């Protein structure tokens, strides 16, 4: 099962390696890890997606807290949240076929950020399924995709919404017990601005 943790860590040298070393020691695979500055001075924010047994979330949180520079660890679980990642995709395109790719980009609400005689570069932000969708369609034509660069996921909990809004979103309970998996897993695919 994929677990998503948001950790606030002190912006000090070696913190990243300590976190990575911890996951190695626990024999848990990190699917993605992003880190950057947060709203607090000197504190960085990490989003870690890890593949671990369902009931391992508490243990991972507890182990992260034992690291000296870790200040806070939030297990997002199935709580209502917004997840995004960024991808840059370089695609082979010449004058004859580039308009087809322009149309694809339009459909996926992606942007063209580089245009060269033999290639163009697509920038796309969104949930994982949207990015996977575009890459899949691009791959329908052989040798079209030259490079793919993905950032890994960033996640942030939604604000406190009323029950009505949450129901309309199809989102889970804000404080779901870990290990409880709801029937429908909301992806918020349609919710992309």
């Amino acid at each position, binding site marked *: 099962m994929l677990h998503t943790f948001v950790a606030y860590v002190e912006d000090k040298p070696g913190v990243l*390696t*300590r976190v990575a*070393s911890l996951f*190695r020691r626990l024999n848990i695979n990190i699917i993605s890890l992003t880190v950057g500055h947060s709203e607090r001075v000197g504190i960085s924010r990490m989003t870690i997606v890890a593949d671990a047994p369902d009931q391992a979330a*508490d243990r991972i*949180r507890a182990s992260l*807290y*034992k690291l000296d520079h870790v200040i806070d660890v939030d297990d997002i679980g199935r709580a209502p949240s917004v997840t995004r990642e960024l991808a840059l995709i370089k695609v082979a395109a010449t004058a004859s076929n580039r308009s087809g790719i322009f149309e694809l980009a339009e459909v996926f609400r992606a942007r063209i950020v580089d245009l060269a005689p033999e290639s163009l570069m697509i920038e796309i932000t969104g949930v994982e399924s949207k990015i996977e969708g575009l890459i899949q369609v691009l791959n329908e034509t052989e040798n079209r995709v030259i490079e793919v660069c993905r950032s890994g996921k960033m996640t942030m909990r939604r604000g406190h919404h009323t029950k009505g809004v949450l129901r309309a979103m199809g989102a889970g309970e804000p404080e779901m017990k870990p290990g409880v998996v709801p029937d429908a897993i909301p992806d918020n695919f349609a919710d992309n601005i």
Partner: protein
Amino acid sequence: MSTRDEKEINAHLTASTRLTGSEIIWATLVGEGVTTVFGYPGGAILPAYDALRKFPIRHILVRHEQGAAHMADGYARASGKVGVAIATSGPGATNLVTGIATAMLDSIPMVCITGQVSSKVLGTDAFQEVDITGITLPVTKHNFLVTCAEDIAPAIRQAMQIALSGRPGPVLVDITKDAQQSSAIFDFEAAKPAPYKPHPMLSVMNTSLHDAAELIRRAKRPVILAGHGILQSGAGEQVRTLAERMQVPVAMTLLGLGAFPASHSLNLGMMGMHGEAWVNDAIQNADLLIACGMRFDDRVIGTPSTYSPNSKKIHIDIDPAEINKNVKADVALVGDLREVLEQLLPLLPGRDGSAWLNTIAASKGAVAVRDIRNLPDNGHLYAAHVMHDLWRITEGKAIIATDVGQHQMWEAQYYHHDYPRTLITSGGLGTMGFALPAAIGAKVACPDKEVWVIAGDGGFQMTAAELSTIAQEKLNVNIAVINNGYLGMVRQWQEFFYDRNYESTPLVSPDFVKLADAHGIPGVAVRQRSDLEGAVNTARGHHGAFLINFLVEKEDSVYPMIPAGKALHEMIRRPGHNPLVERPDDK
């Protein structure tokens, strides 16, 4: 000014002064109450060693840095204080790693200070440079790389705090040579770390306490699982009260031995892979397990899927990461064991546990180990004899440091530990070579106590060089080598599971008595049971270290044994032809 004057002045260093980094290292350690360190000098730590003579710290020179780490470990286990080891960069630091890992897996408070190459050449593969902070990431609670003198005191003070707080463990402080050589204002008080913040996931909520109390009150077949946490927390009295008031039998982990008196009527003995049958049977048949400061290690539970299937589990531990790791807890009380029990005990009225206790006693009676003294002397010397006689002669009051292997298990089975901090043994990592240096550390910590090394012929050879440390420091440590000519425990596994294919387990060893003699340590060989007592008394009477080479039965195995993957009750029992086997007509 004489060296002694300098030492006195430095001992009372209170005002802030400008000192070199090297002096700051020692001044901070003195301020933290450290009186002894174990170490080995080298290029990158030389400036620090040069400053040592000005400070009232005893330095014990070892013969291998692994010995220094194990000595700091044994010192900590025997005293409860932080053990400190010093080494140089490169190979000196890497030689500490096994000892650090040993301390990590057994949660022992330890601080290792290593020299490092100058900060200007870090990362260039300089002479004797290794990234020791990188290497020790998974085996330390935390580590520091200090590159300037002002950071030395805060790092060491914080290291000491981290080592001792929460779940204790080893901390490494790597100090570059230029940091040692430059100077800074040393202010001990200002270097104080921020107050220790307990783990955010500690929780002993009222609801959990009441749930636990309810489970204990209603249980018909409860068992207390007593582990190392009792010693770390100083909760022996509380556990005893719990056991006696609720009449609950107590099973011990290896590292818990001594936390609850072995001679107490409620003490079942050690549980797990080499625990006696009645202990493991009681656990498998229990309806409630109260785990006090233990982590359900795989040596203790057999396999998770078959462990005590019909019982509820109350897990009391200071480390939230241990909860639900191996065994699912029905009630988890996460905090300091003594504090938790003090909140729990008022909720527990007494109860009559005699029905369950009688059931266990009946099973014990049927399979109780025959008193070894009643066995006919068939001329063979068994390790069990050695352990039992040693226990009897020392009245169970000595500090015993064991190595790893069969002898370690026989010691746990036949030397009954009634007092805390009297068994020094590597449980989690199972490090061979641990015994001799750990015993040295223990003796240094407790000079007035009788200290024995019990080591197999294999493990003893791994760190035998520390005999020179004993000689140089004139330590009175007695050494019992359990010599069977094999890497015993591995041979036992080969006997049971690999069709007696004794691949690479027969061991040729030196004559240990001659080896000891070469170090100026007297010794004697014992081949028969009748010579045992005399040899032990000679050792005890001798003023100084003494070695006894016990030439024991070669192919003897530790029983009971739970094979890997089997359940706790599926143990291999003592075979009929073994003279130590139980017989119904024994008293």
